């Protein structure tokens, strides 16, 4: 068992202050724009932590978090559209269906390692998208409309703000616990050398499957809430490769395989995205067209730079200053 690193008073006070600030914004801030942006931050924090278990600790580069997200979103969509179930019920069900999907499709994929796993998951993402377009019960390209929650806009926005925030905090806490548990150590062992881990008695298959299903559950819940929040889903949006890529990018920027990484990476990447959007529009570099692609060029460049110079992300860059207590 790894000894949990002792934390000084500073970080605890800082975290409490941030949390207080977040709650305060949720309760009293007037502008819905900020609330909505922060809700997106929490949504991606949830997704990134969900990816982090298998992708960060386990070293299995999953390029299809959008599939779990999309399956959750469609579960809510179909249940709410067809049966009028409440989102409080459909979101956990979205998680459950997503786990079932992961068990059926994802678990066999875990036989494949390294770059092939990444490619395979990407292909499975395309497959899910094609299926969502063509199976009868998803309404294909028409998409699904869900009637909004019966409250005023502000209350709805606050509801999702606090729900996503709560979930993101729970999952982050859970990830922190896992990091210092036997399960976390086993995942890291799988990442470092799967064969050696197996020889030393780590039940590698079980560990990988558990990490995959846990991640699939949280991503499914996130997707299940998303449908209710946005009110409309269609295959290109919820199964988008962009979602999967963003998740990987955010984890890598912060530091994959640490529970603090997503806390740093998600807000930073979203801040950069926001600045680019505002900045490029103001400069008028590309005329009136929405330069979403410019974003992605920059993000691609960031991904290259991180992989070349900072493979452990911001956490890796910060570590030397904190003293390497856990190093032998």
């Amino acid at each position, binding site marked *: 068992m790894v000894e949990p690193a002792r934390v000084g008073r500073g970080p605890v006070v800082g975290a409490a202050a941030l949390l207080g600030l977040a709650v305060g914004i949720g309760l009293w801030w007037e502008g819905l724009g900020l609330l909505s942006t922060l809700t997106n931050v929490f949504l991606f924090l949830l997704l990134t932590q969900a990816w982090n278990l298998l992708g960060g600790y386990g070293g299995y580069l999953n390029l299809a978090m959008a599939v779990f997200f999309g399956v959750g979103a469609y579960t809510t969509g179909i249940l709410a559209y067809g049966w009028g179930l409440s989102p409080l019920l459909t979101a956990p069900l979205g998680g459950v269906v997503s786990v079932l999907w992961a068990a059926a499709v994802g678990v066999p994929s875990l036989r*494949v390692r390294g770059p*092939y796993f990444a*490619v395979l998951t990407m292909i499975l993402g395309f*497959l899910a998208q*094609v299926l969502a377009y063509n199976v009868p019960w998803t309404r294909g390209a028409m998409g699904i409309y869900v009637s909004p929650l019966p409250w005023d806009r502000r209350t709805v926005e606050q509801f999702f703000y606090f729900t996503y925030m709560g979930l993101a905090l729970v999952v982050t806490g859970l990830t922190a616990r896992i990091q210092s548990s036997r399960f976390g150590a086993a995942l890291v062992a799988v990442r470092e050398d799967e064969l050696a881990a197996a020889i030393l008695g780590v039940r590698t298959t079980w560990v990988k499957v558990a990490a995959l299903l846990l991640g699939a559950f949280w991503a499914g819940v996130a997707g299940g809430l998303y449908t209710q929040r946005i009110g409309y889903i269609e295959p290109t949006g919820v199964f988008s490769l962009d979602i999967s890529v963003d998740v990987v990018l955010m984890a890598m920027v912060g530091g994959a395989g640490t529970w603090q990484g997503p806390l740093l990476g998600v807000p930073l990447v979203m801040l950069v995205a926001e600045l680019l959007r505002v900045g490029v529009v103001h400069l008028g570099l590309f005329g009136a067209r929405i330069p979403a*692609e410019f974003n992605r060029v920059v993000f691609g460049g960031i991904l*290259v730079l991180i992989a070349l110079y900072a493979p452990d992300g911001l956490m890796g860059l910060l570590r030397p200053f904190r003293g390497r207590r856990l190093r032998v």
Partner: protein
Amino acid sequence: MTPALLMEAMVNGVFLGLVYALVSVGLSLTLGVLGIVNMAHSAFVMLGSFFALELLRGWGIPPVLAALVAAPVFFGAGAAVHRLLLRRTASTSEAMGLLVLFGLLLVLENGSILMWTTDTRVLPWQPAQAVLSVGGFRVALGRLVAAGLALGMIGSLDLLLRRTLLGKVVRAVGQNPDAATVLGVDVARISMVVVGAGTATAAMGGVALALMFPFAPQEHLRWLAWAFLVVVVGGLGDVRSTLLAGLLVGQLEALAGVLLPFQYVYAVLYAFLALTLIFRGRGLQSAQERVL
């Protein structure tokens, strides 16, 4: 369904297959010789298509000539990618190499969208639309030219690898880089040549594809999937088995196109690819571990 229709689909499948083989052979080569999964492969395929478009629009250079011009240009691009990106990650980890190439893919794809927008293009080369009758089957000239180009390139690559000293050295690096180093081979330089050649064939494949299909910057990932399908079916690093696998995939797509409702063709091919990756992925891995 008439037998004639089926036969026509199969003939078309042969042309498709030859082009798929050309599109895939670079992926197979870099993977088989260097153990690098080139995620950015299809981005270079797409750039090849636009290269042909620009040469045709700007200077009226016909596509076949454009393919020949593309070879050295994209060889240089591939060599630069190896020199600047892959060499650095070679010593760290596999995952980082993959991420570098994935980042490159994003940059190339979205840079292309900024440059050429997301509109779907067709190569405005009039002769491509002409329809010939070959042995009783109607074939568009564009397909014929594309297939001829592909066959010519694959044939030369096969000769290069089998008959020349350079080819021997490349195969030696693929079999055992350490031993090759001991024998005086500059492995880093050969790796650069292999990535360059892989990128050059990708771009030429892009030119050939542009003769057969409309293209757009954001739609290239389909070709990555198809190239993987060919590589997974055909195995690694051997040009002739890549050719065979390409022909097989061409037939598969052509027949699926005739036998299945249109919207299920992709679903079937993706599912087939996922299954083959799951069941043959280990075979590829062991081949790669042998390489490393």
